[in-house]
């Protein structure tokens, strides 16, 4: 059993989950000491998890692939998952990679490689859907890599810069 701490909209649950295998789409888990029975799409299918049935209650879901949010009938929920068995392997904080938050066109680059930047400082301006969006530094540090250039079109998640 893998023990996870799952926070949904500020409510914390401890979930114990067995290793999943591809042979079955049913699994029993323990949530805060109570057993729940779950049906789900086959493990290893092409789609991310988009529905489950928990103790006979069906849910249709859109789950962020970084597991920061999910949408259900009840609306949008904030999610945090911590692996209680993997505290050692867990990186201390987010990495310093700056990725394109939306696809678009880089209209201006406001920093150069080697610059020192403060967390929250605008790094570049990305134009998408008729709006100019500032992409800001996720942390304080030095720009070690800058691959963005004005006039360049970028796809979602494209690496723009790295800060160390």
């Amino acid at each position, binding site marked *: 059993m893998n023990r996870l701490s799952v926070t949904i909209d500020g409510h914390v649950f401890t979930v114990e989950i067995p290793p999943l295998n591809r042979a079955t789409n049913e699994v029993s888990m323990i949530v805060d000491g109570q057993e729940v029975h779950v049906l789900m799409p086959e493990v290893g299918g092409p789609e991310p998890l988009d529905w489950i049935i928990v103790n006979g209650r069906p849910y249709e879901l859109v789950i962020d692939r970084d597991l*920061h949010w999910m949408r259900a009938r009840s609306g949008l929920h904030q999610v945090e998952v911590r692996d209680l068995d993997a505290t050692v392997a867990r990186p201390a904080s987010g990495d310093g990679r700056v990725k394109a938050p939306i696809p678009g066109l880089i209209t201006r680059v406001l920093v150069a490689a080697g610059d020192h930047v403060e967390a929250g400082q605008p790094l570049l301006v990305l134009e998408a*859907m008729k709006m100019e969006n500032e992409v800001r530094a996720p942390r304080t540090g030095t720009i070690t890599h800058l691959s963005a250039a004005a006039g360049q079109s970028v796809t979602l998640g494209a690496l723009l810069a790295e800060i160390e």
Partner: protein
Amino acid sequence: MFQKILIANRGEIAVRVIRTCRDMGIRTVALYDDSDLGSLHVRLADECVRLASGALYRDVATIVQIARDCGADAVHPGYGFLSEHAEFAHACEDAGITFIGPDSATLAAVRNKIGTLENVSAAGFAVPRHSARPYGESETAALMDAAETLGYPLVIKSYSGGRSHGTRLVREPEHLAPLAQHAHSAALTAFGDDRLYIEEAFLPGRYVEVQVLGDRHGALVHLGERDGSIQHNHRKIIEESPAPGLSDAQRDELCGQAVAIARLLGCHSVCTVEFVLDDQGRFVFTEVKARIQVEHPVTEMRTGIDLVREQIRLAAGEPLGRTQDDIILKGCAIQARINAEDPWNHYLPSPGRLRRFRFPGGPNVRVDTYAYGGCDIPVRYDPLLAKIVAWDVDRVACLGRLRRAIADFAISGVQTNLPLIQRILDDPDFAAGTYDSEFTRRQLLNTLASSGNLRDLAVAAALAYARRSADGNGALPERASSGWHRESRRLPQ
């Protein structure tokens, strides 16, 4: 009647117009640029013509030439782009092609928004105090002076267009210069004209508008009012009819004023007369929209009248064929605009490829969209993805139906404002109909989920996490290349 109509637009309104043309047995020609190749309007039309660049959707000479080349006898401009462009209407008239809308002289008259305010004021109707002329981008000092004279709060509006491009509410003097700067460039991008004018703002107020329908022979009727007070990021998001909370006397006065003003301005075809209802219960005329509007389905659901069909019929010179007594306004209709926007990122646009796009169904639920599962939502146009409208006999039932339909709408692949719409519809003030234009400035709470519900969602999150780990160990090469594999090694933060 027309044989072939060129639709000089894109997105959901192009689809909307094509559908009515099909119903009427009229052939259609769609326009598209590279980013719109996958849109539904291209697939549904009888013919389609490629534009060399997206800017050409509002290029007068190009569109008139295409209309000539394809043998269209009429052009439907939709909303935005060339819909209120008097020179375009005039160019169509010169080419012997019918512009589906008012004639170019009427368009030119109502497009002169300051002149219109003065005409309407001279006829004895209330209008907001406003600047005496529009200001270009280089006239910041003169704009500041005019604002000083007018006082705050005020609204900056684009001289040439609507659809909220260029419209900015200014509450404090220090915000004027930066907001005017944004409005200038937004108006220039959207309408090719950077001029702005300012008028007095009414806060709190309600934005109410009346749909009117008129023929070229002087017959004019109204189809009831709509309330569009709920806005987010300067754009209307929820519209409904009837406007909640008006007395019968107020409603009669509002619709009566609208018809009188439309007659005064020589409006025909499909037009909307817009008012602000101030906190004293006074209706103040603001402008006329001489085109089909985004929120027109609300009126269609209440009246059973296809407004695009009427627009085409009236443009062909047919008489209105109905009197005010023939117009029956039934029940309540509410529309929500679903935008591709990221709720976690200040509702900034979220373009991309739609993975799942499943409509809600059931009686009296309508979805207007250009999108379908697997299609791309282009970066270069506005984020309106779909409109959803529900109708029922009264507002309580209608709201229940729309809430259910919104919860049923399954969209993945791009982010949407569906959660915001859910919160608005669940808000007690919205449910009571006692909202005003300040509504979305306050905090909206998520009240839908019960604690048992949250526990089940925690199970889903745990499973998603475990499946991701299981996938990371699997031997699926596309995972590795999509970045999924790489990210699965990182724990969520």
